[in-house]
């Protein structure tokens, strides 16, 4: 049996963080691989947080925010979408596997969706194995 992958999730407090709560209170099963960090908005996530997570041993990073149109601050998630579209491509350009970084829209009512994303991403990361990139020589 392999060690469980480490998945760092940045979750918006207005939607995805509550979605994770709902997944818990609904007793939905999802892997314990995710370390969730509550942020005020997906737009608050500085891309250097993502790099930092990888450097400190994350195997994958998820940024989760409100669906377009539902942002508590109107447009934080739309700025985040632009920014992370570039960042995701850039991480791949540096040699990281595409499955290691994701941005997802998960509302407070979508406990099921939250569990599904964590399951899916954990399976992807198990398949890839531990990440050593961005911190160790090849």
């Amino acid at each position, binding site marked *: 049996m392999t060690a469980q992958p480490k998945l760092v999730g940045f979750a918006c407090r207005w939607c995805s963080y509550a979605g994770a709560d709902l997944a818990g209170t609904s007793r939905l099963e999802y892997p314990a691989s995710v370390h969730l960090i509550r942020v005020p908005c997906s737009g608050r996530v500085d891309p250097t947080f993502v790099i930092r997570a990888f450097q400190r041993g994350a195997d994958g990073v998820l940024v989760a925010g409100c669906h377009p149109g539902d942002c508590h601050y109107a447009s934080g998630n739309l700025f985040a979408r632009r920014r992370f*579209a570039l960042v995701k491509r850039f991480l*791949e350009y540096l*040699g990281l596997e*595409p499955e290691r970084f994701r941005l997802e829209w998960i509302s407070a009512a979508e406990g099921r969706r939250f569990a599904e994303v964590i399951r899916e991403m954990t399976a992807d990361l198990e398949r890839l194995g531990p990440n050593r990139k961005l911190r160790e020589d090849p």
Partner: protein
Amino acid sequence: MTDRQAALRDIAAGLLGGGQFATFIGFRAGLDPSRPVPHFVRDASGAGALVINPFCGAGLARHVLEALEDGPVGILTRGCDGLGLERLIADGRVARERLHIVAVACRGAVDPARARAILGRIPERAEVDAQAVTLIAGEERRSVPRDSCLLSRCLNCVDPSPRLADSWLDEPLPAGVRDFKAVSHMEQQPPEARYAFWARQFRRCIRCYACRNVCPACSCRSCSLDDPELQERATSLADQFGFQFTRAYHVAGRCVACGECQRACPMSIPLSLLNEKFLKDIRDSFGIADPHRPSAVEPLACYRPDDPESWRGDAR
């Protein structure tokens, strides 16, 4: 003396003699004829020191920040300098009306190290045209292809003339379109090869901060790269990735592709290959043509309702 150089000296002397301008920024001869250095002229009598020749390689735009502290500035401006000035103006760091832009069309600058290697000695003069470069030392004249001895940023240049100008030393040359060939080539390598490549490049960084200090898009008074954590631990590969990512990302959407960072890097790290990746993706993902030319709204300071979303699979 070339016509352009004579005209430049006249304009500089006129601006400084008029009393309105405190500084004129250009080049003067260096100790080595193939390495002229950026120069601040402070009064009309000093204008005779100004030179223009194909060895004038350094970017000048960023120097206006220092010079403007003493009053309005005149500046010799090629295409790359012009984009840098546009950037500083768009960022609110420089007021357009405090500049007098002396525009010149540029056919490329000679890399002094490569020229010396070709000639076996220091070249004294050079002539650059659209086809070739001629290196001259004493009686010897040698013509070589442009890509053998121009600065790499000049080979990819599509902005030979500035878009902003108050006076012209010659006729502007037409602008072109960037093709991002080097980025496309990199994208086609296998991921493991890309990672190995960047790890090898970033390992060499000595944290001299030249890349930041010369960059016209990187002039915040308080800079993330001054974070003590980044400064103290320059030895781990993780921190090298952190530093390089932060530098490149912080100019994403604002980089003018002047290539000055790469030219200044003493370790020859191909920084343009990072900057241009962001530029290419901004063009392809957000449909912004020529994203290196400053526009009213920065690409990352806006959004569209139909921006692309593709998160699980390969976004390339």
